């Protein structure tokens, strides 16, 4: 199980930036599809909110992955609290 925890740690570290890149591409795509000025402003606002929120969370996922990869979550069965 500890090997799996470490391996998945790498996956989470990669998933963070991949998710952000995906969201960023989606944002550009959707804003460029807007036909009118009002629509463009609305879409831009919506995607700005999404990117603003999910950027620190993606960073958190990377840190979580890093901790997992370093073995910080091994042996939690014995004591979960710090």
């Amino acid at each position, binding site marked *: *199980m500890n090997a*799996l*925890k470490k391996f*998945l740690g790498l996956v*989470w570290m990669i998933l963070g930036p991949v998710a952000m890149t995906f969201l960023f591409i989606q944002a550009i795509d*959707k804003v460029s*599809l807007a036909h009118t000025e*009002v*629509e463009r402003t*609305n879409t831009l*606002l*919506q995607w700005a*909110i*999404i990117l603003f*929120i999910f950027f620190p*969370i993606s960073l*958190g*996922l990377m*840190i*979580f992955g890093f*901790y*997992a990869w370093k073995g*910080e*979550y091994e042996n*939690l*069965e*014995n*004591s*979960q*609290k*710090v």
Partner: protein
Amino acid sequence: MNETLPQHNIFKVIGASSLGTLIEWYDFYIFGSLAVIIGHQLFPEDAGASALINTLAIFAAGFIVRPFGALVFGRLGDLIGRKYTFLLTLVLMGGSTFLIGLIPSYKTIGYAAPILVLILRLIQGLALGGEYGGAATYVAEHAPKNRRGFFTSWIQTTATLGLFLSLGIIVITKNILGAETFGDWGWRIPFLLSIVLVGVSIYIRMKMHESPLFSKLKSEGKVSKNPLKESFNNKANFKMVLLALFGATMGQGVIWYTGQFYAQSFLENTCKLDFNDSRYILLWGIAFATPFFVVFGAWSDKVGRKWIMLTGMLLGIIFYRPIYQTFLNDTSEEKFAKNDLVSKLQGSAILTPIPNTNDTLRIVETKFSFKDGSGYTKVTTDTVSLSKVFLHGNDVLKSKILPQSIFWKFVGLVFFQILLVTMVYGPIAAFLVELFPTKIRYTSMSLPYHIGNGVFGGLVPFIATLIASFSGSTPLSGLWYPIGIAALSLVIGTVYLSNKRDENIND
């Protein structure tokens, strides 16, 4: 200390904490339940779907700031105590809700209307961010160690009961005033009513004592000097904050908001159910499922918290799409057409000139009623040119009323979704409390809880509606967001979380 507290005193603690929390949830959810009407009041009349999305964005803003509220009030709670902190959050929440009920419409004050609502919504979000962690911590610190899941699960019922109360008051107000008056000004009543509920709750909370564990810590001079630093600058604690977020609260949040918010939004806006029908379905679902918060909370004291929560996520991942597909199938025009038609009443045509053209929109509403009690209104929109040529637009069905058998089938499907909510949500307060030490518990548990629920969960209606509005998407496309997030949380929770309960929280 907490183990010697008599049972009737614990229930007094739970009652006083839960009432305030319930009212805060009520305040928070009336906004979401009235998103469509508020959209019409706050934005220009021709804003259409963007008004709904913008209102949902304002609604979402209330969720987004919840983690910041968790930091601000969590810190206060760990510094000055649980009792005074969640008294403050109650006052802020009640005041903001009352003021939302007083804001003039877009017609009167223009864009100042949505801006003012946004500011008040942000204050609501901040207050809620401080409330929940305080109430859960307060109850857990009074509860005996082997029944912490059971006692904190009462706090967990308040979010659902707050939603129940908000829906109930909205339906009652609307039925008394009628749909037109309610849409005009009656929607303000549920907001204004909040001030009475908050007044009662403040009175009760003033009589409460400080948590025994926090009082002990304070008397020993062991209160944290800087809870934020100790929570997030300390790797040993911060890694548990991340684990709580990605392995539990993130998945729990999307399951909660899909079952209790997106379901109703989907039935009303996508399936075009009648306003009351969509709310009655949710009300019944909530009424039947709410006792299970306590059932799963108590059960988690025996078998551990982890697997109950993760099973709830797994069932959501498997069953969401079939459930929502059934909603769509059973409300389709073809399904209604199989019934025996009893009456067909065509209203008079409404003619609206199209600006900057010589054409006119001709809108006709026809009410269909069927033998089994079901019905709907068909809206036919034609464009009429100067030469009297009709261009037929798409017919739209709205205000669908379901036959009894389908109505109860939908109640069952919503009940099942809320049952999943009770599985993921019932044990989570005890789970979070046990993860962190007393001196930084309020701060440490509040942040992952409110990112999970406020951000991941609270954004479900907004993001799902956004995804479903993309070209090429289907009405079910929005479900990929909660399914994806729940799946990620399920994997992380399965691999990294321990099922062991930490019985000693007096540290």
